[in-house]
């Protein structure tokens, strides 16, 4: 399987970029420190106040000190903000995906293995979650939550709580098919208790479909986070996130194209890399897809 993945050029490129992003996210303060900058210090002298506060100099004020220039309006170091933004964007997406998978698989397997009533109840719950308009609900929820709650964690939880339906449905469906497999019956005949059946017979069978699904869920969650931050209900300043940077960048389109370009490109690249990874995984893990996708 690893060998097959290594042959998928898209996957390799995606995996390298994705791994790089995760690394950047984890080591953000270190990286910013390396550049001798932090993401909060203002640099008024680098801005042209008369022109609305655009950075002085070409390419958004790129210099030896400020590797990627400074943020218009504040003069904060863009490199530091971008790497910290990675921390939020990637961190929230990863956390949300993890929570979703945890919740979804638990509920899905419970529904699939449980009795008629458990299944009926949990299935309705899954239907309910699936008919929640995620973005709408997330905006509404985030708007009424007190300001001082830790924002990134809250984002991850909200995204996960509203978004585990898909994982649960897939897990339930897979569990239902897996449980009709004779090897599950064989385990039961051998006297295995249900939790042993779930762990040893069902869960291994779930890894492939869930992994491929989760791999796509990750970029989706990242888009949701970016969207929420774009709309201003995401993380709170001065904490940076790419979505929020893009949102403020919309007013700097012409005046400071770099400010739009950098977070946009990073977001796009990261999303693309995760999608490529997901695609590669699916190609390898899902034989049916493998045929269709050639």
């Amino acid at each position, binding site marked *: 399987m690893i060998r097959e993945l290594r042959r998928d050029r898209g996957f390799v490129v995606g995996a390298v970029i994705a791994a790089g992003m995760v690394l950047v996210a984890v080591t953000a303060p270190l990286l910013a420190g390396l550049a001798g900058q932090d993401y909060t210090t203002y640099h008024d002298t680098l801005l042209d106040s008369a022109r609305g506060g655009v950075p002085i100099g070409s390419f958004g004020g790129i210099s030896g000190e400020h590797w990627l220039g400074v943020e218009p309006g504040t003069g904060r170091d863009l490199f530091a903000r971008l790497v910290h933004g990675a921390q939020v964007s990637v961190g929230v997406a990863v956390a949300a995906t993890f929570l979703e998978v945890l919740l979804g698989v638990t509920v899905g397997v419970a529904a699939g293995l449980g009795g008629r009533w458990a299944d009926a109840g949990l299935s309705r719950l899954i239907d309910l979650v699936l008919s929640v308009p995620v973005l709408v609900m997330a905006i509404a929820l985030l708007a009424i939550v007190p300001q001082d709650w830790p924002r990134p964690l809250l984002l991850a939880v909200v995204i996960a709580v509203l978004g585990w339906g898909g994982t649960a449905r897939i897990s339930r469906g897979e569990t239902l098919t897996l449980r009709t*497999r*004779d*090897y599950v*019956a*064989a*385990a*039961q*005949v*051998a*006297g*295995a208790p249900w939790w042993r059946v779930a762990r*040893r*017979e069902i869960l*291994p*069978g779930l*890894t492939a479909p869930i992994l491929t699904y989760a791999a796509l869920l990750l970029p989706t969650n990242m888009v949701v986070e970016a969207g929420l931050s774009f709309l201003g209900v995401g993380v709170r300043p001065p904490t940076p996130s790419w979505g929020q940077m893009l949102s403020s960048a919309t007013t700097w389109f012409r005046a400071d194209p770099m400010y739009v370009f950098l977070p946009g490109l990073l977001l796009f690249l990261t999303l693309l890399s995760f999608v490529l990874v997901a695609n590669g995984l699916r190609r390898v893990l899902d034989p049916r897809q493998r045929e269709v996708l050639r």
Partner: protein
Amino acid sequence: MTLLTVEDLRISFGDKRAVDGLSFALAAGGSLGIVGESGSGKSTAALALLGLSGGTVSGTIDFDGVDPATVRGSQITMVFQDPLTALSPFHTVGDQIAEVYRLHTGASRKAARDRAVEVLGQVHIADPARRAAAYPHQFSGGMRQRALIAMAIACRPRLIVADEPTTALDVTVQAQILDLLDEVRATTGAALLLISHDLGVVAGSTEQVVVMRHGKAVEQGRTAAVLSAPEAPYTRALLDAVPRPTSRLFTPGEPLLRVQDVRKHFPQPRRGAFRKPPPIRAVDGVSLDVHAGETLGIVGESGTGKTTLARMMVGLTAPSSGRITFDGTDIRRRQGRSVQMVFQDPLSSLNPRRTVGESIADPLRLAGVRDPRARVEGLLDRVGLSASEYDRYPHQLSGGMRQRVGIARAIAPAPRLIVCDEPVSSLDVTTQAQVLALLEELREELGLSLVFVSHDLAVLRQIADRVAVLKDGTVVEIGPTAEVYEQPRHAYTKELLAAVLAVDPAEARRLRTLRS
């Protein structure tokens, strides 16, 4: 006059050679059977006749002077194996037949529709005018296969190629379809090329036979001659593997497993707002005993509740009513592991993500064995596998090997009864024979009792001491094997027995006349 001549046909897919120098001829109005194990290249060869094989083809195919691919659908037609998927689900049966007819004859819409109804009648579909407007999913499997045959004869072809036309069908339906093909050949004068892995199928329906193996014809000639006096060792092996009745002396012991008026009803989903349909009575009042040391055969057609009953016997499914006791205690509450099961599909009965050794070790671990590896290797050895298979995954094994693993897992916790649900149905005749022999051996050696579920009367006759005939969830007849086979009392049992395909062509003919 020869209609079809195939000479030195070779077909390969990349490096893989599927057909390797096949030659045969078929006379107009004649019939030819091609038999061989799975993967021997039968379907590939048949498709090549229509120019549809998809591989690289060399050699000559002559259809009365023309390339058969140019007259496919009109002069050569084909009946496929799986009637469930061979018809388009989006169009009515009548439309599909009419479309083909119109295409090749240029008839008017009305004429084509009439012809469709006519041929549907010809294949004995009741009320063909109404049924023509139905979609395939509204037909039963047998009816779909009839519809496909109707489509095949609509254009009055000169050759009908039938690729395993009965494999997916019940024995009784299989017999009907084969009879129909025979009748069609007689009434329309079309030649028949019949492909099957089952010697019984070709024995009664063809005059000539080709035995294929690894893409080559190992033997061919008149069916009667080949089957009665095979020359090639492979043909002989095939014939030997066909289950033969054995008579075994047996003295029934104590009743071990008692099934007392057991029912299992599956509720059906509600239809309409208020009407709740009656439940499916999968098992509807079955009482029987399994005695120590005996092999009880359970036979019946698809959907008669065999699997449901078998699963209840091992406690996997709770009966709706009735009692199943093992050694006096309720099977669902039983603590030990004295009843085990062997499943039909050896692939789905092994967890693809765990090594076969692990799978076998599981019941031992549950029984409290700390380090079961040595015991598992012993078991592997016992079922005819090498100990090195321990670390392999199911997909790396052949079907027969997988079934041996399944058996090893079943005997691992030293059970007293093993319930086998169609353990050999998915296997080749030769493998089937080996597995049957293994089960028989183990039963002797370990003093087991066996419940053997099958739809194949021949298999049961070979292995079972007693046979229970199941129909619509009830036992219509139960008794010692020889008795049931030789003096069947129930009409259904008689019907079943009549549908059995004999490998001996003369016997096959006799049975056919019996049926009609």
